[in-house]
């Protein structure tokens, strides 16, 4: 053989550049209807094997549904591609979804719920055939009782907001049972509590009183003093609030409400930084709720199925959604004889797969592990805050200590460059990360909310902060470039105008075909 030719690149391979040269999968995948071809099938169906039933007209479907017709591989491949065009915690540094506690969902827990011993259980089976799953429900309740300090826990709600609603329903039933249902028609919440507290209270018929933050960023206790009274049904409050600031006077808030005959309900969606540090019962709360898909690691699943847990003090136990799960020392059973119960929140007992996952997660950590979770979540947050606040144009209003998350502001950057927080976030997606701004209305201008849970490493946090710093730099040097993002994503910048126009919007493919292709 002759001499080796000139190479175009040499060993050793150079170090990687400071920022990842990311590009999201771009399969340019058609809409599934465009992949259809008549006569193809993805799966077979058993034949009846018994005489057919002739349906009368008026009951019978006249035209077959225009569903796609595809073979199995092609259905699978289409969805594999779409999955690759989605970034989950498994792939990204998911610290940008503040208030949502995006953490690692251990893979082993998914195995438990895929097991036929969970997946193939019917919820109306006889109790002695489901002792294992009832034991998991019962033990998880005991654990959450200890974590909240409250007397009972209901695992029925399908999400955090559903749990808030269940709490409101119990509050309403409690006051009604005392003949004060009509009189107590107001619920008090705070501006930086999750808006579902206000929304659920309104659905349940309450007038909502919101406490604004005072000059220090805490909910104004004097305003609470002015607001409580004989019409107060409950205080529904998050702490630490969505700003990450812990309200040190929380016990006084609870006392004020109790003094007026109201109940105090603790939204513990932000519990990740205080597990084993302080508990709902310690501050005097009568009710609380946890999100199993946040604090207790069950996966977010593109927006559910999730699960919520409601903790209640003794006086609210009679009103809990039914049935409750009991243990007599030998066997687990359902108590359906609960005359004062608010009834059902959802079908059967709850989102069982997530109850199983949360139980397994706590069993993998124990008391010491949960404390490490809390401490590390808080450490990670303070470390990331330290890095983010070094970026010119970023700030964290109120200069207060933060626990597990921070609501930051790009206001200074926006005033200098005209680039909005949303646009910074979209450009950051070109580097494989995401962030969320804030609930509306924006009290913190040009907001972004970061919550780095215990799952992320120091290197992850460094990388995330470096991406934000880079994009902020770009906003100063090339604002138009940032505004035109994304460039390395599955799709390019979307023009959303048509989505608000009834003549143009298309909520389904059939609507799109009717409005735009016919």
């Amino acid at each position: 053989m002759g001499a080796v030719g000139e190479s175009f690149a040499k060993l050793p391979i150079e170090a990687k550049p400071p920022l990842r040269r990311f590009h999201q999968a771009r399969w340019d995948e058609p809409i599934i209807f465009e992949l259809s071809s008549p006569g193809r099938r993805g799966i077979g169906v058993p034949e009846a094997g018994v005489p057919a039933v002739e349906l009368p007209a008026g009951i019978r479907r006249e035209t077959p549904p225009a569903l796609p017709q595809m073979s199995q591989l092609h259905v699978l491949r289409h969805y594999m591609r779409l999955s690759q065009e989605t970034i989950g915690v498994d792939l990204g540094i998911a610290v940008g979804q503040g208030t949502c506690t995006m953490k690692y969902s251990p893979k082993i827990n998914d195995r438990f719920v895929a097991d036929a011993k969970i997946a193939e259980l019917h919820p109306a089976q006889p109790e002695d055939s489901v002792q294992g799953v009832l034991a998991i429900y019962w033990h998880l309740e005991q654990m959450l009782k200890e974590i909240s300090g409250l007397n009972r826990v209901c695992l029925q709600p399908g999400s955090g907001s559903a749990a808030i609603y269940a709490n409101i329903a119990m509050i309403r039933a409690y006051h009604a049972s005392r003949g004060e249902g009509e009189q107590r028609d107001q619920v008090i919440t705070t501006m930086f509590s999750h808006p579902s507290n206000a929304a659920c209270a309104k659905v349940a018929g309450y007038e909502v009183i919101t406490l604004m933050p005072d000059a220090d960023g805490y909910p104004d206790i004097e305003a609470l003093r002015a607001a409580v009274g004989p019409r107060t049904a409950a205080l529904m409050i998050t702490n630490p609030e969505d700003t990450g600031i812990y309200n040190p006077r929380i016990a006084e808030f609870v006392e004020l409400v109790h003094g007026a005959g109201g109940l105090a309900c603790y939204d513990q969606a932000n519990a990740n930084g205080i597990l084993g540090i302080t508990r709902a019962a310690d501050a005097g709360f009568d009710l609380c709720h946890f999100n199993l898909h946040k604090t207790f690691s069950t996966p977010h699943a593109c927006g559910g199925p999730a699960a919520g847990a409601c903790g209640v003090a003794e006086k609210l136990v009679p009103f809990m959604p039914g049935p409750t799960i009991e243990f007599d020392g030998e066997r687990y059973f359902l108590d359906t004889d609960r005359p004062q119960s608010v009834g059902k929140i959802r079908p059967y007992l709850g989102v069982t797969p997530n109850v199983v996952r949360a139980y397994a997660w706590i069993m993998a950590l124990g008391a010491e592990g949960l404390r490490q979770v809390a401490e590390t979540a808080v450490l990670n947050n303070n470390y990331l805050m330290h890095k983010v606040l070094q970026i010119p144009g970023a700030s964290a209003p109120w200069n207060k200590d933060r626990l597990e998350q921070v609501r930051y502001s790009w206001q200074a950057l926006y005033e200098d460059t005209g680039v909005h927080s949303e646009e910074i976030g979209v450009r950051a997606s070109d580097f494989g990360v995401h962030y969320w701004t804030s609930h509306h209305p924006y009290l913190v201008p040009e907001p972004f909310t970061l919550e780095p849970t215990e799952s992320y490493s120091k290197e992850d946090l460094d990388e995330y902060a470096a991406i934000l710093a880079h994009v902020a730099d770009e906003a100063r040097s090339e604002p138009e470039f940032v505004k035109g993002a994304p460039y390395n994503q599955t799709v390019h910048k979307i023009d959303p105008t048509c989505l608000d126009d009834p003549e143009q919007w298309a909520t389904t493919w059939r609507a799109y075909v009717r409005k735009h292709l016919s």
Partner: protein
Amino acid sequence: MTHPYIPNAEPAVRAEMLAAIGVESIEDFYAAIPAALRLNRPLDLPAPMASEHELVRHMRGLLARNTDTTEVLSFLGGGCYPHHVPAVCDEVNSRGEFLTAYAGEPYEDHGRFQALFEYVSMMGELLEMDVVNVPTYDGFQATGTALRMAARYTGRSKVLVTAAIGADKLSKLHDFLAPDVEIVMIAITETGEAAEFTVDDTVAAVYLESPNLYGVVESRTAEIAELAHAQGALLVVSADPISLGVLAPPATLGADIVCGDIQSLGMHQSYGGGHAGYIATRDEPRLVAEFPSRLFGIAPTAVPGEYGFGDVFYDRTSFALREEGKEWVGTAASLWGITAGVYLALMGPEGMRELGETILARTRYAMDELAAVPGVSVKHAQAVHFREFAIEVADTDALLTALREHGIYAGIALDATTLLVCVTERHGKDDIDALVRAVREVQG
């Protein structure tokens, strides 16, 4: 050992990070929490499993105490159904990208948006309706929300609800519709269908289920739609989409809002963990405005030929007529929507028709065979049934207990003498024959 789930619990990393921040210890971060509120002891929790292997053993020990429906012959339905789940459904919904994603922008989570748009689009074909929401929690919630939508749309506060509805669902409706919406029941005839009733101009909606609690397919839906519409009320119908390969979509019979649960479309029973709800309407802006849920739509991007997605009618709440009883939006059951989309794509129109025909035929076969058993009478036998039917026996508890000895979960007791039996494509003729034999044996 540094816990495998907590990378920065490693002491040297901790120290480095604390030093970078410039604080002494993690305790400093908790300075805002008053001492009186601090828990000054470790949580009293069970000792943790020291390794994944031990966790697996522990969990296997618990799970072994369950007997699942593949180990017995189960005819349990009642809102949670044992349909075959295609392997591709499980494959797609266990993909880490989908399973662990939140709900980012339609850029980094484009695939999720497209998959959900396709789900609502396939549901739209099945339902023959143009607007379908991203899933809510379950069928109970879907009905509750659909009825509140009808109340907001009409500005009225009374709904007429079929009595052929499960007790748990009715309990949920009573709780969820209070205090704004009053529920009045519609009686059921001997045939298991809604009896004659009147509608006046205070009624927001008439609510039917088809198939209903007893598996009965309502035959007068179109007539009832006219009755409701004549008084300005809406017709809301709950339908299991798995029946719509053979049954007429409620919209074609005049329903204004259609809702229900999609657990049948590719979700396991999972002890009640496979539920998700859908709500569908026609494309009328005033009706669309009343959806509390998210709606996804197609939008163009800067590059020709690219499909982008986004939220339709983003500001819709500000266009709605009334503020009372506005509902919340939150994490609900998106992954089950994606899965149901996979299911419908696999089945196609022919699969849905064949499945429906198989279920209709086997349901009727089981009814006829059981009707021939002494001591058993099949209720509403003349009506068309899909997947479920009720039988009258002397003592449901005694029958169920006796049948368990035969490895059969024969159904759900609706009361002391009424049993609800469920038959799907998973129950072959042999399985039905085995049930009938066993019933004959224990009744005799």
